[in-house]
């Protein structure tokens, strides 16, 4: 990694040059909610001024650039009572500007899941290779808990990462592409003072987290509390809409569906993002549902997010952005569910320990 400092005016020129020459996406305000708070999404941008760099967090995550909601896996062409299968991995180079550390961490987790292992996904690889990621740090929202998941700082998975240190941006350059682009602009090596300002900025960010979740030992707690009534309690609230998985930056479960073209000349196999909270997620042909109850499905989601992957790769899937909590229609958020699960545990503890004597 190479570190440079760039003035804000020069940074604007740099981003402008990138944005004007490539298909680029950045955070833009789309609307405001009923409390008047701005809602942001990653949308196409044409110049630096389009980008709302001071945005809080986007409602949907950046995963949709890599895992689109609908993606064509292969195509079948019918002819003379036979068929031909065609596969293409087409991805156009794009620039993503202003990803938060947790978003980039989520991409790293997706890399782990989809590119390592027995069957690397070429569809994801094509998109990931052709994306230029510019990260940007931010002060957390009151309900973010990235720090608890250790994803408030990111050290890989981006091409360029910018930290705001007042008059300048402190750049962490993580790819030769980014380095070559920056050669055209006025950058300099950071001074001691600027290194200090970066450390200050990082400290400020890490001290600004208001929400904390204790995740130590969570994988084993999830195992032990498998039959806990907490799941039924939260499951009864769940509407099975699947919103949480759609906005989650690291949820990748999908369903494969095939549809015939209307002229009957071919068929398309499509991958659609799916949610484990949807009723038929684990239903097999013949009608047996392996997770018939709301609570079962909600539990599975937490199990997968906080335990499943931890066992396989020693990492939790959740990055702590709390998009699911913000988007949930019935106000289920990870903080409350996990704390509830822990309270369950601690209430047992008080039963076991003798109570302190009172005078």
């Amino acid at each position, binding site marked *: 990694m190479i570190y440079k400092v760039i003035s804000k005016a020069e940074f604007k020129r740099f981003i402008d*040059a990138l944005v*004007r*020459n490539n298909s680029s996406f950045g955070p833009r305000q789309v609307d405001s909610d009923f409390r008047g708070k701005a809602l942001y999404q990653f949308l196409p941008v044409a110049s630096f001024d389009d980008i709302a760099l001071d945005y809080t967090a986007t409602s949907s995550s950046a995963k949709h650039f890599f895992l689109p909601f609908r993606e064509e*896996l*292969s195509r*079948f062409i*019918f002819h003379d009572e*036979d*068929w031909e*299968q065609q*596969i293409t*991995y087409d991805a*156009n*180079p*794009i620039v993503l500007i202003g990803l938060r550390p947790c978003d980039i961490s989520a991409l790293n987790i997706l890399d782990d*899941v*989809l590119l390592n*292992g*027995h*069957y*690397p*996904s*070429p569809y994801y*690889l*094509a998109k990931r*290779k*052709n994306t*230029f990621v510019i990260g940007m740090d931010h002060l957390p929202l009151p309900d973010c808990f990235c720090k608890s998941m250790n994803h408030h700082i990111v050290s890989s998975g981006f091409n360029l990462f910018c930290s705001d240190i007042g008059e300048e941006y402190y750049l962490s350059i993580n790819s030769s*592409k980014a380095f070559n682009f920056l050669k*055209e602009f006025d950058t300099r090596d950071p001074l001691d003072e600027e290194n200090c300002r970066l450390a200050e900025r990082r400290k400020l960010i890490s001290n600004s987290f208001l929400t904390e979740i204790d995740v130590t030992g969570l994988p084993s707690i999830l195992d032990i509390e*498998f039959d806990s009534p907490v799941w039924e309690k939260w499951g009864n609230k769940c509407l099975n809409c699947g919103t949480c998985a759609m906005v989650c930056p690291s949820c*990748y*479960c*999908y*369903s*494969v569906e*095939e*549809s*015939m073209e209307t002229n009957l000349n071919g*068929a398309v*196999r499509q991958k659609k993002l*799916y949610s*484990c909270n949807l009723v038929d*997620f*684990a*239903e*097999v*042909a*013949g009608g*047996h549902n*392996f997770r018939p109850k709301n609570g*079962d499905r909600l539990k599975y989601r937490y*199990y*997968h997010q906080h*335990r*499943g*992957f*931890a*066992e*396989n790769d020693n990492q939790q899937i959740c990055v702590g952005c709390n998009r699911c909590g913000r988007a949930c229609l019935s106000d289920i958020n990870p903080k409350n569910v996990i704390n509830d699960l822990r309270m369950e545990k601690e209430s047992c503890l008080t039963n076991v320990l003798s109570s302190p004597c009172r005078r």
Partner: protein
Amino acid sequence: MLDKRFVIPLQEINREAFASSIPDFNHRSEIMKTDMGYKCTITNIVRLTEQEKLFQLRIIDNRERDIFKFKPGQFLMLELPGYGEVPISISSSNSNHEFIELCIRKAGHVTSALFTVDEGSHVAIRGPFGSSFPMDEMAGHNVLLIAGGLGVAPLRAPLFWINEHRDRFLNVHLLYGVKEPSQLLFTYQFDEWELINHITLHAIVEHPTGEWQGKSGIITELFDDISIDPENTYAVVCGPPVMFKCVCNYLDKLGIPMNRMFVSLERRMHCGMGKCCRCMVGSTFTCVDGPVFNYWSVMNLKEAI
């Protein structure tokens, strides 16, 4: 006008050399076109019962046919273009390199469409996927094959393996339970298995009809008929979810070690490659780590059975 200095070049992954070779699912790291199937002709269709048909497939391309090698217990994804893909366990012998046999029940959208297909049609397969029964480890022991209903289809592959290497095994029992006599599969092979291969076959029917001569009841009642040496027995169980628990608990009580009992689980699957998560049990993929698990790992998996 674009400034070339700032244009991000396109990186194509198609160009990489290995992307053009045919997918070899047995050498997993080499494959790129993971969604490209091997094209097959349906060479024969046998109607087994009202609900089940046996499809015999032959991979058209010679090279692909050479590559396709599986182990007993593995499954493949069968593609019917225009309708979709279904995971089907292979129920033919793995020494048969020419033909693949799949026993399919008419249950869902794709299998219903498959039942209307004629011989000579072209379908595609991907695979084989998943884990297999440890046939070499079982050699030198008694083997107990326990099948419920359609569960006999995945057990037919290890059964073929045992038949081909019969001298390596001691006593082999096949316990087979179904709901009605008309649902018994592979009845035409019963004599062959019993008389030629010396496999003791016990069939039981839950709701006997007029012509049924054999036992009636549920599958655990068959254990009274046979003597099991727990020290020296491997058990393979396959059937509907409700069957696993009672059968495995019974065998556990008998004293068969948990790591010598194998079950083949069924889950909804969409990719077969550990990506779609539809088949996940807790933190384990049925398609990559399974479908064959030993009972100890199943006990450790919450909500597995």
